[in-house]
């Protein structure tokens, strides 16, 4: 039988550092897409209750211990970090291997993302635990604010190398302007 070598999506590409703003790849964890059937939101909330979570509203993410649930689209959320419970009122799909998860942290994080993402990601418009589906340049993106200067980014696994490259260029460009100013 073939011996397969497990590799993280952005293995060997991170960490990156630009003037103290860093990009790291987050460890691979279980990711489950949860899509409630029509009218089943209460049943889904009941099933998520033991985790201390509920189905998030659009633009919302919730974290409890190791588990995080984030809204990822119309009638869809991703449960990250824990194995999913039985949820009779929803369709579940394992997405664990499908996404690259990156964390951008530092004083230049907002400015770097402003070059790539067509959203206002400043704290006033995008506070702690806010999440959004948008674009990272041309790539479909899920972005969540996880700290005052920290964002968790998710792109399709096949686009990990491009995503890291785009972020690297943006981080270095913003850092270079800091130095010049």
């Amino acid at each position, binding site marked *: 039988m073939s011996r397969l070598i497990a590799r993280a999506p952005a293995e060997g590409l991170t960490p990156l550092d630009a003037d103290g703003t860093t990009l790291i790849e987050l460890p691979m964890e279980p990711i489950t897409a949860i899509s409630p059937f029509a009218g089943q939101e209460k049943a889904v909330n009941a099933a998520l209750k033991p985790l201390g979570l509920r189905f998030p509203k*659009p*633009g919302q993410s919730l974290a409890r211990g190791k588990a995080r649930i984030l809204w990822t*689209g*119309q009638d*869809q959320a991703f449960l990250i970090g824990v194995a999913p419970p039985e949820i009779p009122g929803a369709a579940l799909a394992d997405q664990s291997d499908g996404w690259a998860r990156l964390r951008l942290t530092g004083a230049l994080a907002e400015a770097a993302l402003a070059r790539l993402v067509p959203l206002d990601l400043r704290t006033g418009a995008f506070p702690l635990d806010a999440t*959004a*589906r*948008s674009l990272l340049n041309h790539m479909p*993106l899920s972005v969540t604010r996880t700290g005052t200067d920290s964002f968790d980014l998710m792109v399709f696994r096949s686009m990990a190398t491009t995503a890291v490259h785009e972020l690297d260029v943006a981080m270095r460009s913003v850092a270079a302007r800091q130095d010049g100013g």
Partner: protein
Amino acid sequence: MRIPCPLCGPRDLREFSYRGHAVGLDRPAPDAGETAWDEFVYLRENPAGPTQDLWYHEAGCGAWLVVERNTVTHEITGARLASEAAS
């Protein structure tokens, strides 16, 4: 151009793709007859003023939207979920 997505809020045009006039929501019954199908497939109004289009929020929430716009002023006056508009 920005489209006010009912789920995501106002978003940049590049997150959306365009389908056509919202007549697509009023598909005739299979046995509605040649005239109804001919009109549905080929005939479109060309209004000077308010009109409704279908847009897909491809890089956002993945929802189909009915977007109201004015062809004279280019103003976007509203958007709602196609799933709700069709029901």
